[in-house]
C-alpha cells in the first residue's frame, strides 16, 4: 500500500484529469453547438452529451495524488467538472424527455 500512496515525483496525475477534461470539453462543446441552435439535431446533441458526461465522470473519479498548489488546482478543476456533470445531466434528461414526448405525439 505504501508504494501506491507515495506520489512519484514530478509525475502527478493532474495531467490525467486534464486529459479527461479535454475530451469532455470537446464532446460537450459539440453537443452545445448543436443544442444552441433551435433547428439543431437534438438526437445528435444527446449522443455528444452522453460521451462528454462519461469523460467527466472518469475525470472526477481520479484520486488526485499531487501536492500543495498542484493539488489545489487539480481539485478546483475537478469541482468544476462535478458542477458541469450535474448541469449536462440535467440538460440530457430534459432533451431526452422532450424527444420522447415528440415521438409519442407523432
Amino acid at each position, binding site marked *: 500500500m505504501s508504494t501506491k500512496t507515495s506520489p512519484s515525483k514530478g509525475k502527478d496525475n493532474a495531467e490525467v484529469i486534464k486529459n479527461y477534461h479535454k475530451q469532455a*470539453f470537446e464532446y460537450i462543446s459539440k453537443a452545445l453547438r448543436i443544442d444552441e441552435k433551435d433547428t439543431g439535431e437534438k438526437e445528435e446533441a444527446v449522443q455528444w452529451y452522453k460521451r462528454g458526461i462519461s469523460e467527466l465522470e472518469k475525470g472526477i473519479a481520479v484520486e488526485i495524488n499531487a501536492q500543495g498548489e498542484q493539488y489545489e*488546482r487539480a481539485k478546483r478543476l475537478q469541482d468544476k467538472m462535478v458542477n458541469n456533470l450535474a*448541469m449536462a445531466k440535467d440538460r440530457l434528461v430534459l432533451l431526452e424527455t422532450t424527444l420522447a414526448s415528440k415521438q409519442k405525439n407523432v
Partner: protein
Amino acid sequence: STTTLTTPQNQVESLMHEMADEAGLDLNMELPQGQTGSVGTSVASAEQDELSSRLAKLRDQV
C-alpha cells in the same frame, strides 16, 4: 526566403491573461516560471467555466 510562423511570446501571454481575467484567475499567482502544467490547468478551468455558462444559458431558456 523563409517566413517564420511563431506567435510572439507577448501575444501568447496577453491572450492567457485575457482568458484568466474572464475566469477570474490571478495569472501571476498561478504561473510560476516554467510550470507549463499549471498553465494547462488554468486553461482547463476556464474551459469548464465556459461550458458552465453555456449550459446555464440553455437551462434558463424556457
